Every structure is written in structure tokens, then in C-alpha cells.
């Protein structure tokens, strides 16, 4: 199924319903880039998000953190994608791509943080709590400046 283009890059296809990435499995150092199709991200079996933007990247978290995949990515439609093997080495040889991935991660951190704050505010409103902590994450020691 996979088609070699360059030694570190191959083209791959996944039919609808199949799993591109399985939570808990070792990453193997590859990053996937969506060419066409729609996927959904599941964590602990719970839906997290849908991705259909060509150019979207998966697997970068486990490659960067050198740990098993933190979520499952499943094809909603038939999916075509590029697989970058030995991704860390490839990215270091292309610093602008690495920077792009850092930017993408920062955007995701920002988006999830905003959702957390919204959820926390809603919770506080539900509970009729009058004082909302100025920083929900103050206990993290991770200021995100």
C-alpha cells in the first residue's frame, strides 16, 4: 500500500474506520501529514476532535516526547497521507519545519487552555462560586508566557 518517494518520506492510504495511530503504542519515530480525508482523535475512547485540514500533523507529540502515542487517530473517511520516517532527524535537518511544528503545538496549547478556562468558568458559574481563581493553572508552575 505504501509508496516510497524519498527514503524518509512515503505516501500511505488508510480506509475509513481504520486506525492510523493507536493510543499507548510506541511511535516508532514517524510523523504523519494529512493529504486528504478526515480523521477523529480519541483519548481513552472519548472523542477529542475532528481533523480534515490538509497539512495537519499527527504523531509529533510521541516523537518529540519519545513516549507512546497519547491518543488514537481514526480515519472517518478514506485518508491519504505522507509519513515522515525518522522524523526527529529529518526535522533537525529542516529547522523551519521544526519551528512550524513548535508554532502548531503552541496554537494547540492555546486552544486547549482556552477550552479549559471556559469549562472552568462554566463550572464556577454552575456552582455559584463568586470568586474565580485568577489563574486556573497556578498550581502547575507552568506559566505559558
Amino acid at each position: 500500500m505504501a509508496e516510497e518517494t524519498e527514503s524518509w518520506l512515503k505516501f500511505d492510504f488508510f480506509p475509513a474506520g481504520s486506525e492510523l495511530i493507536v493510543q499507548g503504542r510506541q511511535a516508532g519515530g514517524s510523523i504523519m501529514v494529512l493529504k486528504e480525508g478526515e480523521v477523529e482523535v480519541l483519548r481513552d475512547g472519548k472523542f477529542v476532535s475532528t481533523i480534515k485540514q490538509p497539512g495537519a500533523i499527527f504523531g509529533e507529540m510521541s516523537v518529540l516526547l519519545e513516549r507512546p502515542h497519547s491518543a488514537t487517530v481514526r480515519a472517518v473517511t478514506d485518508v491519504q497521507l505522507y509519513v515522515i520516517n525518522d522524523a526527529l532527524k529529518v526535522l533537525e535537518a529542516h529547522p523551519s519545519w521544526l519551528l512550524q511544528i513548535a508554532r502548531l503545538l503552541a496554537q494547540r496549547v492555546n486552544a486547549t487552555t482556552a477550552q479549559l478556562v471556559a469549562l472552568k468558568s462554566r463550572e464556577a458559574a454552575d456552582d455559584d462560586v463568586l470568586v474565580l481563581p485568577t489563574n486556573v493553572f497556578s498550581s502547575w508552575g507552568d506559566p505559558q508566557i
Partner: protein
Amino acid sequence: MEQILVAAATLPVSVLGPRAVLVNEGARTGKLYILKSGDLEVVRDGSTVAAIGDPGSVIGDMSALLDLPHSATVRTRNGAEVHVADDADAFLDAHPAAARHIARLLAARLHKTTALLVDMRRQAKVREDQVMFDKIFALLE
């Protein structure tokens, strides 16, 4: 940490006295700061929310990468030496090890925020179910 300090060694160092402000909440500098020595504190809406004391700690990454204003004020406690990259993009482009270090930090941060989000959504769902049951049983009384 060490890799970023090696890359940061190419940058100028700013020496700050006690209680000196490094970045102001709401300001947009496009700069990246790497702590060389000393201690910093993060102040948001007038309250100290975190302390930064590990050499190699990165300040301003989110703001520089996303071209957003700084979300908090960072100032020294007793004083600090800080490496300053005036152009964060150019610095990261020239130092892949530093870019990889920051990408790793962001990935770890995303891992935490996503885990927390999934957990909070789960708790919210449980609470919603409880409210619904409370309403149903209230109707039965």
C-alpha cells in the same frame, strides 16, 4: 535544558537587579528569553502565580511563536542573568536543538492540557447527569 543553554550562549545577556521587570503582561515583544542564572517570578493580575529558577527555563515562547501579547508579567526576585533573543524566529531557525527543546516543552504542555481537558469534560458530564437525575427525582416527589 543543557542543549538550550549551549544555543543560548550565542545570545547577549541581560543582567537584571532585584524586582526588575523582564516582560510586561499585555506587551508584544517577539523576544525569547532564556534564564542563565537567578530567579524570576510570574505575576498575573497582580498575583504571583509561579516561580522560575531553573537555568535554561524559556520565557516568552508562546508569545513569540503565536505573535501574541505576553499573558503575564515576569520579574526578578533577587536578580537574574537572562539570555535575550531579539528575533525569536531567527534564533530558533539557526539553532535546531533549541527549536527541538521548545517543541518538546510545548508537546509536554499540550499533553498536560489535553489530559486535563478530557478529565474535566468527563467530570462535567457526570455532573450534568446528576443534575438531570436530580430534576427527574424532584418531579417524582
